[in-house]
């Protein structure tokens, strides 16, 4: 293995200790990932046999959270979700996709930031209950200060902030310096989003959240944002790897994602639903309720 290739992925000091660390890039979904296994042929995200040796990404001073959920636990979580999903198509149940669950480290950023400034709203109240009565308009000005600590955001575009946010109950106090040994039995997905883009995205999220909170405080029936002069100050930004289990699969031309938090087992499921099952479920419920109704009517 070329040392120059390893160096950017890991901390400079660790390069010498690691041997046989491989980086792959999928030509279909453009996912870059790293693994100790030298003979990987399929992409961990899309499952296509189109991976090639890729360019390494640069990660310095990164941290990671250890896995606390085993692969067997992830299997059990998946089985539980499948068992209780009555709308899952029968044809999908038969598919053995559970074996495709991937144990990976997902690149994320952890931000500490504050939002400060003023927001102006137009508020309006109807002066009478009479239909189409005129409204009295108010101008409301608020000064605000918000601090966000450990705001997690995904640095991998294919598993974005929405699913990551839904499984986020990570305990960041357990963050440790990144040690390449931890990816011995799993893969490490490389970031595919520019740092500036991530920062902009985080700032947007923070401002949107602030505006929503302030909007909730406006004491009028109708509320309309007039202007905001909010300034976001990023005090720190840290690249980390979070442990996840996931399956990304296609069913009838649509992509679905099953994601498990590798630390706590929190899960987000996006599984296909069948309209036929919905109709069947409706009919079963209908027959059941009719039977119950008949029994009650007979008793009464």
């Amino acid at each position, binding site marked *: 293995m070329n040392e120059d290739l390893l160096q950017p992925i890991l901390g400079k000091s660790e390069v010498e200790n690691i041997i046989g660390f491989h980086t792959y890039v999928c030509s279909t979904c453009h996912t870059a990932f790293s693994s100790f296994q030298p003979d990987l042929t399929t992409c961990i995200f899309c499952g296509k046999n189109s991976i090639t040796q890729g360019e390494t990404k640069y990660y310095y001073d990164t941290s990671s959270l250890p896995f606390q959920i085993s692969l067997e636990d992830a299997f059990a979580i998946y089985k539980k979700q499948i068992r209780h999903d*009555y709308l899952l198509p029968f044809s999908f149940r038969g598919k053995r996709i559970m074996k495709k669950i991937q144990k990976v480290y997902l690149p994320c950023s952890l931000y500490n930031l504050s939002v400060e400034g003023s927001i102006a709203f*137009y508020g309006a109240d109807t002066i009478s209950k009479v239909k189409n009565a005129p409204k009295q308009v*108010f101008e409301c000005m608020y000064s605000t200060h918000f601090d*966000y600590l450990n705001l997690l955001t995904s640095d991998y575009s294919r598993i974005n902030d929405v699913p990551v946010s839904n499984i986020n109950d990570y305990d960041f106090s357990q963050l440790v310096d990144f040690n390449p040994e931890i990816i011995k039995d799993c893969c490490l997905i490389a970031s595919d989003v520019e740092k500036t883009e991530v920062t902009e995205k985080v700032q947007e999220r923070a401002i949107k959240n602030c505006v929503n909170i302030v909007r909730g405080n406006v004491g009028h029936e109708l509320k309309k944002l007039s202007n905001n002069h909010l300034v976001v100050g990023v005090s720190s930004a840290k690249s980390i790897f979070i442990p996840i289990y996931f399956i990304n699969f296609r069913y009838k031309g649509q992509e679905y994602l099953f994601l498990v938090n590798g630390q706590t087992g929190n899960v987000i499921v996006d*599984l296909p*639903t069948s309209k036929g099952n919905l109709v069947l479920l409706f009919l079963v419920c209908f027959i059941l309720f009719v039977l119950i109704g008949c029994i009650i009517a007979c008793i009464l």
Partner: protein
Amino acid sequence: MKKKCLFLFCFIVLISCIKVNAAPISYSRTKDNLRVPKDVDLSKVNMDTLLKIPAVDSKAKIYDFADLLTEAEEAKLFIKINEYINNTGLDAVIVTTNDLQGLSLKDYTYGFYDYNDFSNSGISFVIYVTEEKKSIFMGNNGIPNSEVYKAYPDKTVTEILRYVYKNHIDQNDYVGACEEFIKLADGFYVKTFGSYKVGEGETEEGGFPWVEILIVSFVLSFIVSVLLYSKYDKPQRRVDQSIKKALSSTTMIVKSEYDKPVAEKNTGNS
């Protein structure tokens, strides 16, 4: 000629307005021809009573000996009583009389039903009206513990009679009394059996709340389906947990600087 036509027209209108009462056809019984149904055991029958009870055509159902009802009213009652008979499977008879032939009202009622060719199970309603008094009686005829006794126990019979007497007989509303009697008899039957019994083990529309059950079941099934669909479909619509978790509530400040009405634009001359 015109006067004659006018007179004829008025006469026809007058005739049509007159209430027509027709006495029911009855036959007198003699010792040689008792006119009783075949199932009546003559050895157990009181001959004096039997001879005093009029023999009638059992299909008529309305026997207005006291001429209290018009023919139209009788026809209307006949339809209603037949509806009751068809629905319940019980027979029903309405009798009005002003002469009990020296019998008690009870003996007359039961005798009238038993010694004419009515079904084994049925009810009879007799209105006895004279210048001095008005009485009514209801008989339930059938074998002990049969349907007719279950539907119309003594307490129910008393309730029906008391209600009919108070609300109709007292006001000389005899047709109303008969209609009310049929209505109450029908109501108490449904109340007892929950539905009209067509045959053994069968039920007919009217008693069982099929429509209500189907509507309620449909609505509940719809709600369950929608809830399940919303639970399993598109789970990623949830709120941004990360930002909620990251927000430090201890240092959060939202301070209202001002909240003032917007001054209306002055469109006047000043």
